[in-house]
């Protein structure tokens, strides 16, 4: 779905590399770096620069800091090299929860939802690491396949990106049970970014979100969808095979499309409603959505959540 004019104006200008081309990059690290670099390049070109993160304090400039954050006025006034620090640059512990089930291995484009989700997760990790934030990882399918605590140290990002490259596993999405386990495992509060296709019964969805929120975590949900899952563009009757369970059904798309879309929309609405009830922002994106745009949305959402958190702590 092509972004509207309003959308395009709201987001920074797109980077130099388009999504399809980026997704062809085999190395996840290079891929994520390309996205982030493109994001920053867009920031500089976009009139609506910056993020909606508030300036909090200065810190001493060290070699290597991004000169974009150098307070030039202060330098002019006081001949002091100070970097502006924003709220999100400090005290952020972000846990990326990435759905690694087999359903994520489906893709109607040249890449799968898993590729997109991992690229997104890697992009977020790269960006946050760049912001000196601690990033951790939960890979989930039937349960927690892999766990990396949130750290900011040398080599941790590479380790995280390496974990992200695990092939999808499991014969089901144990999202609900995995969220419960995640909540039990997290000892410090932070930001939980859930990247999943949410193709699982959402009977206890609200409960699990509430559990995460009750432990003091902020949650952002990226609902990854494939365009084919939305449109169901198939024409020929075929035996459809469930990518996760292997179940087979004879489906005539001409007759099944309408009911599928209805039920799918119900599912989306159920996910949306659950998130809204818990005050969890849910971003429904397709694998066609530019990753810079998603990153921008992430920053915006994160900034909103942190402002709300500060206000609540002040009050």
């Amino acid at each position, binding site marked *: 779905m092509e972004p509207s004019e309003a959308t395009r104006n709201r987001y920074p200008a797109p980077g130099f590399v388009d999504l399809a081309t980026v997704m062809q990059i085999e190395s996840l690290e290079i891929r994520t770096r390309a996205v982030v670099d493109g994001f920053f390049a867009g920031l500089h070109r976009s009139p609506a620069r910056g993020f909606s993160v508030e300036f909090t304090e200065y810190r001493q400039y060290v070699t290597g800091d991004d000169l974009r954050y150098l307070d030039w006025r202060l330098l002019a006034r006081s001949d002091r090299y100070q970097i502006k620090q924003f709220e999100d640059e400090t005290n952020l512990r972000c846990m990326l929860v990435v759905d690694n089930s087999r359903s994520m291995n489906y893709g109607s484009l040249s890449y799968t*939802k898993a590729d997109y989700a991992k690229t997104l997760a890697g992009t977020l990790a790269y960006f946050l690491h760049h912001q000196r934030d601690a990033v951790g990882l939960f890979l989930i399918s039937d349960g927690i396949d892999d766990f990396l605590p949130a750290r900011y140290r040398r080599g941790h990002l590479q380790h995280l990106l390496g974990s992200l490259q695990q092939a999808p596993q499991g014969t089901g999405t144990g999202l609900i049970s995995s969220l419960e386990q995640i909540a039990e495992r997290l000892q410090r509060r932070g930001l939980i970014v859930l990247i999943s*296709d949410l193709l699982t019964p959402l009977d206890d969805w609200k409960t699990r979100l509430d559990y995460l929120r009750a432990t003091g975590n902020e949650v952002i949900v990226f609902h990854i969808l494939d365009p084919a899952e939305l449109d169901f563009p198939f024409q020929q009757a075929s035996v459809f095979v469930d990518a996760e369970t292997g179940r087979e059904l004879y489906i005539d798309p001409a007759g099944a499309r309408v009911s599928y879309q209805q039920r799918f929309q119900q599912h989306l609405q159920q996910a949306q409603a659950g998130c809204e009830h818990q005050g969890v922002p849910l971003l429904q994106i397709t694998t066609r959505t530019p990753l810079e745009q998603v990153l921008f949305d992430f920053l915006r959402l994160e900034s909103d959540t942190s402002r709300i958190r500060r206000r609540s702590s002040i009050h």
Partner: protein
Amino acid sequence: MSFLAPLYLLAALAIGLPIAFHLIRRTPQGRQVFSSLMFLNPSPPRMTRRRWLEDWLLMLLRVAAVLALAFAFARPFLQTVMTAVSEDPNEEILILVDRSASMQRPGYWDRALEQVRLIAQKVGPRDSLQLQMFDTSFETLLSFAEWDQLAPGVRVQTVQDRLRESVPGWSETETGKVLLEATGQFRSEAGDASIRQRLVLVSDLQAGGGWEALSASVWPEQIRLQVLDVSQPGESNASIHLATDPRNPTSEIRVRLSNTANSLRDSLTLQWKDPFTTEAGNAANDSGERVYVPAGQSRMMAPPVAPVEGLRGTLQLSGDDVVFDNLCYVAGLQPRKLTIVYAGDEPEDDSSQGLRFFLSPAFPKDATRTVQIIPWAPGQAAPDILDQSPDWVIIGKTLSPAQRDWLKSWLQQGGEALFVARDAAQGQSVFDLLSLPSAPVEEGAVRGHALLGKVNLDHTVMRQFRDPRFSDFTKLRFWKYRRFDAATLPRGDVIAEFEEGSPALVEFPVGQGRLVLLASGWNRDDSDLAVWSKFVPLMNTLLEQACRIKGISRQWEVGDQLELAQLGFKTESVTIRTDGQTVTHPGDSLFQFTRPGLYRFAVSEAELAGPDSIIMAVNLPPAESRTEPYPVELLAAAGIPLEEADQPLAQIAARAQFQRQLLQQELEARQQWWRWLLWTALVLVGLESVLGVWKGRRQTAAAT
């Protein structure tokens, strides 16, 4: 094309299944992996026109496989022209009519003729019939070929005419043997199911009919036997048969009287009839002897005193229902008086162990003969035997010229003589008797003793010694013998030779008679011949040969054959008289006894009443008197398929249908189309499988 099991063709309706599957079932174009099926429900199959057109080849293969299977199970076959035409098989009917002696009973022959007429009337236009009569063998009255050539309108009449010309005989019955031989008379082959074969037996089924032979043989399966019993229910029979062994005649004759188990009469009468009459009456005769024979039993007894000397004539039994076997013919005992004329120098009461001394003991008296030895005095030109011709002449000395002339004449007229060479001079006189040039005769040179070197055991005189137990001649020693040169005796048949090769016993034909030359005497001075164990049988054989006394029986049964040459008449023809009829047969032919009675044999009709005629008695075979009928079930138990006398048309039609089915089964078994169809079905299924898999893979590749 026809089918053995046409109902299986209904299975061909199963071709609707693959057609329906191809029209109804929607084969998916391929497989599509999707992230989750939790929002999808399975779609029902529906027909598409495009799909049916795409898989028409697959559908055709499946339809063809189903059709091939259905046809295979239906067992198809191609009917040949022959089987298509012959709906009802033809029938060959062979009728065997019993003409044995037991069919002489009143009414039996008429009933048999009637049965044959009924059978002949029911014969179909395409059927064939053969008529034969039998007793111990069969005689064809009308063959299959003749029947086929006759116009249909005259066939039955021809059968009746042929039968009317025939009458039952007097032979015994060999039903089993004749039936088995008759099974080979049918024209069609055993495996030809298009022709039915039926053998019809018209008989009185008497127990003594020799049916037991059927139990020991295998009856052809395709021939059915139809038995038409012409016996009279409840009829009983008493019979009389000679119980004396005809080979060992004794002075006593005994008869066996038998009475059947169903007989109601046990008191019978036995008497002698006129010797030359074979008629048997049924009226009791007060002059006869009453005998008591219970039903189901038999008695042996001596007959009443015969009115004719020698107990010869006809015994008649009366008092039962059936009279054909109530006469017993007895040839009786007729001892002959034989005369041997001996020409020798020894007195009659000679005790010097010369020729005469051993002659009388060599011919003892017995029941068949008495032998009288009459000396031939030197002064008698002819033997003094009351103008009777001697039976045999033994010459043991030199004959006077008159005696020699008489002997030569007598030999020419058929007389037989034995010439014993007593010495060389006397032996030389044999050449004159033989009308041969005189030749020297020498005394044989004997060192110690001489033996016979060669004996012709094939000669009639020596044949009795052919057994290895009796063929040892080494114990016969000769101290003296006369040596004849065999070249000087050209017509002689040498019976024995001495070691050095000269003849010892030679037989010469002289005119109609015969002269036997013995080159040594049996007196003790010459040899051990008289005390040799074979001397008496040798001399009696020579006597029998000379006197025509043979070991032939005087008692015969109907069907037996007599070599007329055994009678010893030595004539070109023999005259035979029986039952008031006189016939003449060649003297060297076989004569078959065809009816019971007393037969007289003589060289001419004038001699029939003379003392030289030979009387023989011929009786019915005892088995022919066992007239009680045996149950037909015994034939079925012997494995013979029986056919009912009157079969309903429905049964005939059912059998015809059964025959047709058998023929069809045989055709199908030979053609075996089902095998080819089964293989075709397998090949089609294989092709369908390969094509289906190929199409499936192609569609999967296109979908993915």
